């Protein structure tokens, strides 16, 4: 008993509780007609931490709010235990992981799903936490990391959001939930001279649904009639490479991921399967890459240039009748990656230029960015200013403009034109 009291006393004395967070109410207004864009956003974030020796417990939570109609939702985005022995770190719980060398767009970073409401946020803010077990070992100049996730998490899409132009009208029904939920990833990093190089592998399931089967009626002399599309998730393996090096005043970051994805074999009971059901078997290899050059000016302004590429190759597909296994000549569907950097959704080749700086003794923060679609017409321009009149308080204002192609209404940038907006808000950090 005495030992227990002594242990508890020592634990209490050596433990550290800490907290931080921000309150950030803001309003987004369409530049076209000055109407408000009503999407949910994180009005408040709170991070809590409890440290006891080599152990940490962390909770990252957010209060999400929609201005009109007024809606509130509290979300525990992360809650995990961490143990930091001399050789590395072990974490278990709901976590957000970060892989890759580039800033913001990381094709090798696929452990967590993305939250498309926060697509334009940086870092962990645009990801969805998932329950996982991770361990990292530091040995000389090597880092080895393993992550295991027992449950498949999917991207959060703004379904039915009239204010988000790329939103799908309603949440689709998933006919074939993932059978093998287990996902795992390994990463090894080492330092060679002044460069860091990392190799990674991730084996899991797509974060976005895809077509797996369809109910089709064939009749003589008329094209096949597709009655129903049934969705599920492809199984995907990612092989990644990331690299950081320094040349003179420049920092070069490179990241490349090869994705091998295919529709899962559906173990359908043919006796319970409708006769008009046809399975779609698609196998695709695609490559996503980010090449980044970074320069810091004498006045500490950081300029970042990124070239983002997404290339599909080795695409094969077959349609076959589930019951008879007979191949049929139905057309393929456009392939959409279900894993990788979300910016691939906008363009197969894009150039991103961003700059940021802090002036007036930390009072004024200036950011600017341009994204140019190199494939076809399309640009995104953004600029923001944040002024801090008092410590821990900021007033922010920003503008984002999408310029599409008037002759191509399917162009993603054209679709996003009505999302061009101004944003005004207040930030209080505590």
């Amino acid at each position, binding site marked *: 008993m005495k030992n227990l009291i002594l242990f508890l006393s020592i634990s209490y004395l050596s433990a550290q509780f800490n907290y931080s967070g921000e309150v950030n109410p803001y309003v987004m207004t369409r530049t076209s007609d000055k109407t408000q864009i009503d999407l949910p956003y994180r009005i408040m974030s709170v991070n809590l931490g409890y440290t006891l020796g080599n152990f940490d417990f962390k909770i990252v939570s957010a209060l999400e709010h929609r201005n009109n109609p007024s809606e509130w939702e509290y979300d525990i985005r992360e809650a995990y235990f*961490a143990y930091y022995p001399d050789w590395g770190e072990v974490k278990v719980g709901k976590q957000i992981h970060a892989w890759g060398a580039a800033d913001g767009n990381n094709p090798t970073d696929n452990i967590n799903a993305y939250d498309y409401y926060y697509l334009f946020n940086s870092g962990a803010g645009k990801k969805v936490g998932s329950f996982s077990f991770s361990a990292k070992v530091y040995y000389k100049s090597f880092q080895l990391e393993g992550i295991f996730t027992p449950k498949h998490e999917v991207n959060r899409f703004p379904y039915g959001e009239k204010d988000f132009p790329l939103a799908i009208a309603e949440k689709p029904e998933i006919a074939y939930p993932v059978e093998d939920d287990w996902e795992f990833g390994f990463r090894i990093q080492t330092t060679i001279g002044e460069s860091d190089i990392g190799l990674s592998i991730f084996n899991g399931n797509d974060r976005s649904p895809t077509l797996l089967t369809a109910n089709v009626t064939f009749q003589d002399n008329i094209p096949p009639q597709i009655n129903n599309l049934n969705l599920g998730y492809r199984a995907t393996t990612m092989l990644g490479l990331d690299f950081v090096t320094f040349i003179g005043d420049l920092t070069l970051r490179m990241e490349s991921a090869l994705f091998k994805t295919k529709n899962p074999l559906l173990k359908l009971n043919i006796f319970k399967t409708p006769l008009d059901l046809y399975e779609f078997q698609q196998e695709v290899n695609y490559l996503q890459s980010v090449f980044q050059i970074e320069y810091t000016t*004498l006045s500490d302004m950081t300029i970042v240039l990124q070239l983002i590429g997404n290339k599909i190759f080795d695409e094969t597909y077959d349609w076959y009748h589930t019951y008879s296994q007979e191949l049929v000549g139905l057309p393929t569907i456009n392939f959409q990656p279900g894993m990788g950097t979300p910016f691939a959704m906008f363009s197969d080749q894009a150039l991103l230029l961003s700059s940021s700086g802090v002036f007036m003794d930390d009072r004024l923060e200036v950011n600017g960015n341009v994204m140019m679609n190199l494939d076809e017409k399309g640009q995104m321009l953004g600029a923001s200013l944040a002024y801090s009149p008092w*410590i821990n308080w900021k007033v922010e204002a920003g503008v984002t403009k999408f310029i599409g192609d008037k002759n191509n209404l399917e162009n993603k940038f054209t679709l996003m034109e009505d999302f061009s907006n101004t944003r005004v808000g207040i930030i209080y950090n505590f």
Partner: protein
Amino acid sequence: MEKVDQIKSPLDSETQLKMTLISIRGGKKRSRSRVLKSIEKKYEDGVFKTKSLLVFSQPREVKGTAFLNWDRIDGKGDDQWLYLPALKKVKRIRATEKSRSFQGSDFSYEDLSVRELDSDKYELIGEESINGIKCYKVNAMPIERETQYSSRVVWVDQQNFLMKKVEFYDKKNNRFKVLDIPNHIKNGEYWTAIKMTMHNMKKAHSTELEVLEVNYDQGLKDNIFTESYLKRQ
């Protein structure tokens, strides 16, 4: 200057600092402060000179932002890492040039690093009192050109051989910056400059560095100066 160099310094230190940036515009003084922790350890392994960690706690917006620096002996440049809590990622960054401003302050990285005794040649140019303390006035001219300054004039306390004031001259021989170190206290066997103010003579700007708390020779473990520890701050 040999006696200045012989002043005993600790093997490791953990210092809580308040850095205040002060600007004067239209006769009005405006200031903005940051609070940070600096942890440093000397190495005698033949590879590293020092390893250091800087962790910001104020303003709250940058709480948890941390820098790790490994200063190599071979002169191949430092290894630096930055941890930004919002990104949840440790980023390897390009080693900052010594002449660059330290975190937007009037101190450069060079000003905050220890200058080797044999890097300069010295000339005694007089004696003056600083805040009532008798000082030697010494002109230090760099032997190597790897510095942003053409010379420094140093006022050294005649009793304890502590630097009380330094004037930095740019390559055109104009007075560029002035460092005032009015107060030192002795913690055990080590002297601590509890407040330093660097005045930039080209801009109406200065930076005050105040020691809030300091601990020496705690036997800091090597795993403090790792990426893993950087993320825990």
